[in-house]
């Protein structure tokens, strides 16, 4: 035996299950009673700085089927690259965090947000503008982390330290949203298959 360094183990993840909406988006699920608005439903709470964008997408399973019972959360910097909870100067009219249950009929999720500014990487150099994305659903045992990057940031994307970690460069486009005009970006998340979205262990 050796000394016990008394580090605890993280509680193991369990699937969010098919009824995640009850606890996380009860209003969207049509059962809300005590709460006025679902948490994360509104990211822009006032005159937020920066350009308004809309992110939309589907979560797609390994049979090309649309996952209708997933829940997607995003976390991102404000337009100036400042983060809630880390930077007191962060935009007071922007929460940085959004949550959306996929539509139970169409499977579409969407967020009205602002285009994020650039954040530093661990070495202090700047990352490309990106949105951190987290997906949970029935059948997903542990939440999946990915990132949304922007198609109109080619130079920044080319030098982004996270994108550069992806050895199989042909997979990088799975992280780049598609511009659909008028500030809308489509970001489909493919759980499996040849164009499976890159997911991160971070």
């Amino acid at each position, binding site marked *: 035996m050796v000394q016990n360094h*008394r*580090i*605890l*183990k*993280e*509680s*193991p*993840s*369990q*699937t*969010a299950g*098919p*009824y*995640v909406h*009850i*606890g996380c988006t*009860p209003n969207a*699920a049509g*059962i809300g*009673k*005590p*709460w006025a608005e679902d*948490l994360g439903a509104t990211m822009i709470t006032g005159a937020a700085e920066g350009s308004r964008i809309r992110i939309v997408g589907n979560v797609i*399973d*390994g*049979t090309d089927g649309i996952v209708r*019972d997933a829940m997607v959360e995003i*976390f991102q910097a404000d337009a100036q690259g400042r*983060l*809630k*909870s*880390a*930077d007191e100067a962060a935009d007071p009219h922007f*929460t940085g*965090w959004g949550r959306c249950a996929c539509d*139970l009929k169409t499977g579409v999720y969407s967020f009205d947000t602002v285009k994020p500014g650039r*954040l530093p990487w*661990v070495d202090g150099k700047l*990352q490309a503008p990106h949105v*951190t994305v*987290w997906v*949970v659903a*029935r*059948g*997903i*045992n*542990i*939440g*999946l982390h990915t990132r949304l990057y922007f198609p109109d940031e080619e130079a920044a994307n080319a030098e982004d330290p*996270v994108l550069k*970690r992806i050895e199989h460069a042909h*997979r990088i486009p799975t992280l780049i949203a598609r511009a659909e005009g008028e500030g809308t970006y489509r970001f489909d998340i493919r*759980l*499996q*298959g040849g164009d*499976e979205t890159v*997911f*991160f*262990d*971070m």
Partner: protein
Amino acid sequence: MTTKPPGYKTRDRQWHPPGLTPAYKTSVTRSPTRALISMPTSAGEEAGPVFGHDILGPMDNDLILNWAAPGEMAMGPRILVRGRVTDDNGRGVGNTLIEVWQANAGGRYRHANEGYRAPLDPNFGGYGRVMTDAEGYYEFRTVQPGPYPWPNGMMDWRPSHIHFSLFGHSFAQRLITQMYFEGDPLIWMCPIVGGIDDAEAIKSLVAALDMAETLPMDARVYRFDIVLRGRRQTFFENRWEGL
């Protein structure tokens, strides 16, 4: 020595269930087939959403009352769930939001996709939320949820459980898990629980009955502590407080 802790410790993926657990059939088409890309946490993962205690209503941590008609109560075995949220260094995670959802005492969820024949309880919604105090402690009141059948294997029943969503202090700590109840034989038959390989990891999700704390003629107490990921620490920070 550096003064800034270099990020969060990497998740132990052997301790968590893997993505693909074929006995839980839905995982077969919803689990990534490629290796996850490893990266250190950086600024964007080491911050997280901020919630104030002001988002909480007075009934949010009382599932027996928060959906009930005035003067009514939810039906079922009354329990208090109490515990502490810490990081893996043993430090309390204070002022963090916990969201919970569950079936009613008969095992039925209030949800459009629910297919179990058990009836709804008109006085039970099945959702609540609570913020930990400064030291990471939390408590909520509810009824013990019933087990329920689910469409997986023909004879699969979920053990009684409460779903937990936790934020911690950063997006790196984000976690959804489930709390099970001491002594439930269904725990060890469940394909979702069984996705976890290590029996010790499973036991860490089983709440202990605490009869000493039981409220006479009111509610039993279950204790459920939760551990979130912790930061790597510089050596001089390495105090083992609370352990």
